[in-house]
């Protein structure tokens, strides 16, 4: 009797059985996964969001924004995680750093284009009314550019959650630990772990959509 079974339609049902029998274990792994993802996302937001917004406001650094986007997309996650390992050794920072590098480009680029793309006349009018640069950014450009900004954060979030799975090969723990270990958890476990990752990604996207809706002032009568 071997641990790894061949795939039968029943395997998919077994996955739900796996979830049922290992609920607390899966929850623990999901928490680890979330912890890693949130840490990386938070750091990326801290580094990239203010920078992107500011550059977009000043209409400077188009080249930087575009290059970061191109280069960022081109970075293979496995290579980054391997680089992280060789630089930081095994621990918390090797995977977090790799994920931060992956998360920065969409946040930075979208923030830049969101603010940069706001109608110049509106901004001029505001400036004419005597608003400070900071006020313009906060009250005019940011609200108008919010959908694009949040879209960038959403892309980054989904990307980070998906890539955190691969971090398991470098000791990152999380749901990836189950997915890379078919020998211990069987295909049912792999499916179960995968479903949890998908659920997490969808949840993050949903949360961000709701946040966007909450932050966008409603105009006109509510139907």
């Amino acid at each position, binding site marked *: 009797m*071997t*641990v790894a079974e061949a795939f039968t339609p029943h395997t998919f049902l077994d996955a739900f059985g796996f979830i049922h029998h290992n609920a607390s274990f899966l929850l623990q792994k999901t928490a680890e996964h979330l912890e890693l993802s949130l840490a990386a996302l938070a750091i990326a937001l801290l580094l990239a969001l203010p920078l992107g917004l500011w550059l977009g406001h000043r209409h400077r650094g188009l080249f930087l924004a575009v290059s970061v986007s191109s280069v960022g997309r081109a970075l293979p996650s496995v290579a980054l995680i391997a680089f992280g390992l060789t630089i930081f050794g*095994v*621990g918390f920072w090797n995977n977090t750093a790799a994920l931060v590098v992956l998360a920065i480009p969409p946040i930075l680029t979208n923030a830049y284009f969101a603010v940069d793309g706001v109608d110049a006349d509106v901004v001029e009018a505001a400036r004419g009314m005597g608003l400070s640069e900071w006020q313009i950014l906060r009250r005019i450009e940011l609200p108008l550019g919010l959908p694009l900004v949040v879209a960038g954060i959403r892309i980054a979030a989904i990307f980070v959650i998906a890539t955190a799975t691969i971090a398991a*090969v*470098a000791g990152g723990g999380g749901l990836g630990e189950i997915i*890379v*270990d078919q*020998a211990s958890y069987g295909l049912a476990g792999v499916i179960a772990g995968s479903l949890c990752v998908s659920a997490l990604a969808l949840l993050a996207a949903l949360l961000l959509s709701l946040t966007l809706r909450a932050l966008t002032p409603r105009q006109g009568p509510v139907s």
Partner: protein
Amino acid sequence: MFRARIHLTMAVAALVGLVASAGATAAAKPTVTIGNKNFTEEFVLGQLYKQALEAKGYKVLFKGSIGSSELIDAALTSGKINFYPEYTGVIVADIAKQKAPQTAAATYAAAKRFEETRGATLFSATPFYDTDSFGMLTSTAQKLGVKTIGDMKKVKSFTFAGFPECRTRITCLLGLKQVYGLTQAKFVPLASISVYTLLDEGKTTAADVFSTDPQLQGSKYTVLTDTKHVFGFQNVAPVVSKSLASAGGAAFAQIVDAVSAKLTLAAMRAMNKAVAIDKQSPAAVAGTFLKANHLK
């Protein structure tokens, strides 16, 4: 046209041999689909058999780096591969889940009996054996004052790193917990990085090391004595599907056994060292060894 017909027939025969793992015609050599697990020694073993067979005119499809014993065994029984090098103790204790015998010969016999109940057979075993061992940094061993695995009982808590399948194996963590009573051991599963990385960085107290690892040659790492033989006897023997064995016949077996016979402990250690420490490729190392022994 006639020649094209012959080529086409041979190609179809090879294809049938591959797809159905059934015997090809008596005259044609069967296609061998070799798999190996995902660590240095297995890379070398896979290359050794692959190149030796190719030198004698066999077509070899190579599925390197499949993963743990459990996965590669499933690959064999489902026909995806028909040949892979395995450790006899692992077959008996972890795949067959039988009680581990007390001698290397008995382990081999039990493994062979088991494989024959599932459409496969075992070719001759190698002289060398590679057992899992309880390894740690020498400095750690001195600090804890331990010499045998049993000594670890006095350590309040410790981490033990290894391949994921180690967790559920009686020849690994399970054995440590059940036979030695080391219930305080906390398991650290590895996916792709080596145990030595974790040991060096102090991320684990002890780890599942392989007795033929070249890293164990120096004095940096220490292996604790396995007084209760939990880790078993681990000679290597190629697991071959019955259809391949019968299709290949005596000639095929002879080639494989000739390679196995040359794999002594010293030879294996030297080859592992060339790959792991001196960073040569498994293929090149295997090729050099085979040439030196006139097997290629």
